[in-house]
């Protein structure tokens, strides 16, 4: 099944990219967290995603793409200390059920919404509390609208979602933290960028980069596929790869508020 193989490959590629990025940004994320938190966000995210990288490498070659995404969540729960474990990992795990029938434009929107709902529920944070929710909410809403209302291709929708997440990250700077360790600082949290919103953006950027790579044909998975490559097939398969990434995106949220 070409589509399923493409989705699997995209999920694995996204994990690789996110793990590389978290390791590269470890110091930066920790600096952000040392200003208003407990200075462990970079280390936690890097350790968590390096563990995910290993786990995915060992995953059953026949695993469904949705199962791989679930593995990402379960691994983060076990490996990440701090709030990122339950927020990122628990939410990815629970939203991964939306991908049971594969990663499509439709299921990636469902995943994104389920992920956001779980993050908000678990962390008890609403928009404006200076948490990952401030990056994630505009991103998910933009993605959904782009797909469902504006009928954009998933890659474009994801690019718009990343832009929305970036604005969300900037929006956290002047806010006073109301959740997590930062809330203990009160007004002293004002003027600092939220680490969880930032790592959420980084993950989304890597999902977009993965989508671009697959959709632009740098990696031609169609060649490995057993199905013929008609223009329609290619388009469809590309769209699915995208979605994949998106799904991960959403998945990737993090440590917003908790400590």
């Amino acid at each position, binding site marked *: 099944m070409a589509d399923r193989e493409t989705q699997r490959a995209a999920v694995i590629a996204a994990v690789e990219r996110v793990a590389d990025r978290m390791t590269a940004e470890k110091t930066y994320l920790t600096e952000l967290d040392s200003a208003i938190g407990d200075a462990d966000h970079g280390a936690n995210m890097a350790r968590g995603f390096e563990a995910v990288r290993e786990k995915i490498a060992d995953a059953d070659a026949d695993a469904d793409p949705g199962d791989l995404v679930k593995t990402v969540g379960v691994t983060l729960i076990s490996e990440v200390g701090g709030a990122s*474990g339950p927020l990122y990992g628990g939410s990815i795990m629970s939203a991964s059920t939306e991908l049971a029938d594969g990663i499509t434009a439709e299921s990636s929107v469902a995943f994104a919404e389920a992920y956001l709902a779980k993050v908000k529920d678990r962390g008890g944070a609403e928009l404006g509390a200076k948490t990952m929710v401030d990056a994630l909410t505009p991103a998910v809403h933009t993605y959904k609208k782009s797909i469902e209302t504006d009928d954009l291709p998933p890659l474009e929708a994801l690019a718009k979602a990343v832009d929305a997440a970036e604005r969300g990250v900037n929006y956290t700077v002047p806010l006073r933290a109301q959740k997590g360790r930062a809330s203990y600082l009160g007004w002293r949290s004002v003027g600092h960028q939220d680490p969880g919103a930032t790592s959420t953006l980084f993950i989304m950027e890597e999902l977009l980069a993965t989508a671009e790579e697959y959709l632009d044909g740098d990696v031609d998975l169609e060649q490995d596929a057993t199905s013929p490559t008609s223009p329609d097939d290619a388009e469809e398969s590309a769209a699915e790869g995208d979605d994949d990434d998106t799904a991960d995106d959403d998945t990737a949220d993090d440590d917003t508020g*908790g400590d």
Partner: protein
Amino acid sequence: MVGLVVVSHSAKAAEGIAEVAAQMGSADAEIVPAGGTPDGGIGTSADRIREAIESADAGDGVVVLVDLGSAVMNAELAIEMLDAEDSDVEVEIADAPILEGTLNAAVTAAGSKATVESVVASAEDAWDYRKLN
């Protein structure tokens, strides 16, 4: 007897609180500390909390005492994991200050008529204690 699980970001703090609570006279309740991350760092772990809940349960349920943010989230996640496994352990998280709440809970939990509800209520009564007059 209702079991207790003490969840703190520090393994030492969780052990210390369990130790202080266990000294409470007649309180021979099962008090299981679940602090820190699996690698010994500062943080909390859903897996570790889930194991502690299973170990604390003697049949009448378990009350979980927590410190900050992720302790609450990981305790909730641990309970969801138990539910997903069709566990029949009755578990509640007490909304209480962790040290005073654990002391109160330990006294109540050791009683023969203790229930999860009565232990949670007694842990939450700890909010009323003042340290200075």
